[in-house]
């Protein structure tokens, strides 16, 4: 199967963001692969390999939309095992979810993958929109918030375990389709392709690149494209006006014991 995986670079989510005036101060931030995109890459690799063998079951193309520096994170995905990359040159400030989805849909039109696999959201903007918008633009079915992915025996559809409000839903989507990856898709038994033996257990989490993988990634192709070459007119529908720090919670107190805790909850906070 041919899988297109999208990858965004984001400021390291472990670092507290700096706000200068009404904008985010990105000087000196450490850029990393968006967590959910890394999970999408891992999911694609598990779908397209027969584990413990060198056999590949298809091609994995990494798509990034960003400045040339994003090639660093793309190389990481190539080192994990993806086959090649496409970078569409753009700056985050000129994009919104809708324009990103349009670019993704245009690349899908060129590449014609069987599956578009994306992180459920970028952990900087937290919008959680692009996979759904792209699916709508393509007229494809969508399986968002995937916690488990299984390729149907006939290879024509994918059965996805989705985290929904009431529990875990199972949804079947005919290929081509859009899947957005959630946290639990990287659990040891979450991805099944019918080729990797049932007995195989993956390590939890996305894989690390091997030395061999890193060497191989240097020779893998990253093709640069412009938005204009894709025939997309950038017209963002949403613009960011300002960014501010969230209201701080005032520091509380430490209570001495259970008796004091209950007394304060009852008499002071009046919640019991």
């Amino acid at each position, binding site marked *: 199967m041919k899988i297109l995986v999208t990858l965004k670079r984001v400021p390291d989510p472990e670092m507290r963001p700096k706000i200068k005036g009404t904008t985010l101060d990105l000087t000196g931030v450490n850029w990393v692969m968006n967590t959910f995109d890394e999970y999408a890459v891992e999911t694609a690799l598990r779908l397209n390999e027969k584990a413990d063998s060198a056999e590949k079951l298809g091609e994995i193309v990494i798509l990034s939309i960003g400045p040339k520096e994003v090639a660093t994170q793309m190389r990481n995905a190539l080192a994990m095992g993806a086959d090649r990359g496409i970078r569409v040159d753009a700056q985050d400030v000129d994009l*919104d979810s809708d324009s990103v989805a349009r670019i993704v849909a245009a690349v899908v039109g060129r590449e014609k993958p069987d599956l578009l696999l994306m992180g459920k959201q970028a952990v900087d903007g937290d919008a959680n929109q692009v996979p759904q918008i792209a699916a709508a633009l393509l007229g494809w079915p969508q399986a968002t918030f995937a916690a488990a992915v299984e390729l149907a025996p006939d290879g024509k559809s994918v059965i996805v375990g989705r985290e*929904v409000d009431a529990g875990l839903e199972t949804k079947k989507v005919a290929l081509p389709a859009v899947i957005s990856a959630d946290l639990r898709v990287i659990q040891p038994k979450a991805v099944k392709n019918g080729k990797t033996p049932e007995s195989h257990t993956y390590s939890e989490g996305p894989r690390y690149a091997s030395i061999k993988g890193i060497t191989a990634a240097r020779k893998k192709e990253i093709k640069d494209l412009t938005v204009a070459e894709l025939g997309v007119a950038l017209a963002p529908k949403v613009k960011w*006006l300002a960014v501010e720090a969230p209201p701080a919670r005032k520091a*509380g107190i430490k209570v001495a014991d259970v008796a004091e805790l209950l007394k304060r*909850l009852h008499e002071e906070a009046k919640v019991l």
Partner: protein
Amino acid sequence: MGNVLTFIEYSDSALRGSALSAIAAGRQLAEKHGGEVVALLVGKGAKAAAAEAQKVAKKVVVVDDARLEHGLAETYAPIFARVAKEQGATAVVAVADNLGKDLLPRVAALLDAGMASDVSAIVSKDTFKRPILAGNAIATVQIGTPIVVITARQSEFRPVVPGAPEGQVIEAAAGDIDARGAEFVGIHVTRSARPELTDAKIIVSGGRGMKSAENFKFVEELADTMGAAVGASRAATDAGFAPADYQVGQTGKVVAPDLYWAIAISGAIQHLAGMKGSKTIVCLNKDPEAPIFQVADYGLVADWTKALPEIVDAIKKLKASQR
């Protein structure tokens, strides 16, 4: 002038708690748009909830069709888009639960509209505040399209109180339905007699420090003394101590109850993003340096194995004295 199409969820003949928050957000936006709230009920048997919906909206559009039993974005989104146009809507609103998050971007795309997700405040007809970076910053965003689409963070919109059943109910046909190759297979529902996390006034959550799924019964026991919902940190759900849909946090459920108990939860940014809007936060942790103490109104440094039974006893006594 435009109306605000507001998607409300129901269960049998009742509205879900989230519906009342959706209407609250819809009303705020309707005021800015100079129109009225048009509530939208969609699904198999949706008609049964119309009587309740009449109590919260002047106009209720019901699309009741057996083919809409399951909330598939592929089949629901075109109906939302069509009804929005029929009702002269300049805004479409739903709460930012998983259903709303799955559906509304698809609706926005069909309406060629800009969308703001997880809105925490409505500034004007086209401008919204929303948390970004796991709640570490708040962005103000402006939508430039004639129709605006938002999902509203349920915990930030106080549920409306139903009034007299005065709303007009309009039944609309589902029309052609094309699931685009998507098919609902099944659902594994986590059943609980406790309140839903997103509606609960009190929540007791357990973290990695609970050490096992077995020990989670102590968290449940505390919850049951207060009629509370049970939640968990991501570390606890990842470790299998609690089901995934118990997860409170940026990537789980965002909650803001009157009282939130964090038991043996360290307080990772991810978790704090999902609960720091709670009115009163209590934490119990044996590590006095745990970040959770920085957001807790009342912190108790103690081992849960010792303190939790004491708290349960004390609350039972307090409740008994209140009878």
